């Protein structure tokens, strides 16, 4: 995948300039998926696969669904450093929730908390909200105007989220 | 041996999810239970593929992972609006204008 295509749009709205790069990336990704999933390497079948990939890209372009938001290749490099951190958080949170579920007294304290999302683009906010949801023990109920309503299984979980570490990381991810 | 143990564990988990689907009490409990059941089904198909030495099962698991998601969203939309076409007709009318 191309790591960092040059882009002029700053805030997720600049769609036209990088459409060709996104279409190409989508085509490459689909060809790779087709090859890996089918496992056939005969000329006839390869041609059919390539044709169907080109057809799908053409349809996607016509539907106007190829843009920075649906296919964020500009984030690829930074996502690779964000995901390991997220996986670590998921692991720690899962162990915590497991302890709470299994302990006889069940020390849970369900909490609703309203957080501010400091990301500028919709995509950044969605990444933040989905990161919260992926981490066991907290999930997003809704996003409205930069405010995220979160349900936490324990007060400690809500407090650690309110500390804003994840929020800062996602904002850095989005802005670079 | 390992895969037999994994299959049994997954069956236990699926039984617990089914219990929640039967107990309810709200419709959202049941949807959640069915969604969790679906995730376990995906894992189960993958493990079964290894258990019986037929990795082609993974293609089915792959499809099931997607169908599970679409199914959950469809049922949620139906419960909420009692109408799976909600939103699309207005959109079509806009597009035709």
């Amino acid at each position: 995948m191309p790591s960092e295509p040059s882009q002029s749009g700053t805030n997720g709205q600049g769609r036209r300039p990088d459409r060709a790069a996104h279409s190409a990336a989508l085509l490459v990704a689909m060809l790779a998926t087709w090859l890996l999933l089918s496992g056939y390497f005969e000329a006839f079948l390869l041609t059919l696969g390539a044709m169907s990939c080109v057809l799908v890209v053409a349809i996607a372009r016509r539907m106007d669904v190829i843009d920075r938001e649906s296919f964020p290749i500009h984030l690829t490099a930074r996502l690779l450093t964000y995901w390991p951190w997220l996986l670590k958080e998921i692991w720690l949170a899962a162990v915590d929730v497991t302890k709470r579920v299994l302990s006889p007294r069940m020390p849970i304290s369900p909490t609703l908390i309203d957080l501010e999302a400091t990301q500028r683009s919709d995509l950044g906010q969605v990444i933040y909200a989905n990161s919260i949801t992926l981490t066991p023990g907290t999930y997003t109920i809704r996003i409205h105007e930069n405010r995220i309503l979160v349900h936490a299984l324990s007060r400690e979980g809500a407090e650690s989220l309110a500390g804003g570490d994840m929020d800062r990381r996602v904002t850095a991810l989005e802005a670079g | 041996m390992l895969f037999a143990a994994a299959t049994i564990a997954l069956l236990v988990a699926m039984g617990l999810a089914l219990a929640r689907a039967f107990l309810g009490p709200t419709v959202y409990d049941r949807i959640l239970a069915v969604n969790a059941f679906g995730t376990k089904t995906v894992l189960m198909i993958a493990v079964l593929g290894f258990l019986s030495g037929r990795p082609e099962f993974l293609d089915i698991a792959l499809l099931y992972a997607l169908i599970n998601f679409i199914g959950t969203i469809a049922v949620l939309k139906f419960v909420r609006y009692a109408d799976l076409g909600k939103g699309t007709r207005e959109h079509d009318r806009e597009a035709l204008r």
Partner: protein
Amino acid sequence: MELLRDILAWGLVLGGCFFTVVGAFGLVRLPDVYTRIHSAGIVDTVGAGLLLAGLTLYGGFTIVTVKLLLILAFIFFTSPAACNALANAMYSAGIKPVLAKDDEGGGS
């Protein structure tokens, strides 16, 4: 080397099974819908993650590995969306979450 890989694969698969069963158990044990979603979340992330990672390790690197990783990616991308759709639908329908009282001290 072979032995080490097998032991690691066993550990991952059994760990995944453990978290899956715990998640399902929480689905039955926890008191209301909003808290049960947390429990289902464990199955979707850690349970599926460890189990499929174990299978990947066991199978060695072939086309099977790619399919397992794709399944994992699909689960990781779709589960928060489904979970959020469910929570949002419940909240909009007016179902109130059972919350901890402030004076109770709550968790541990």
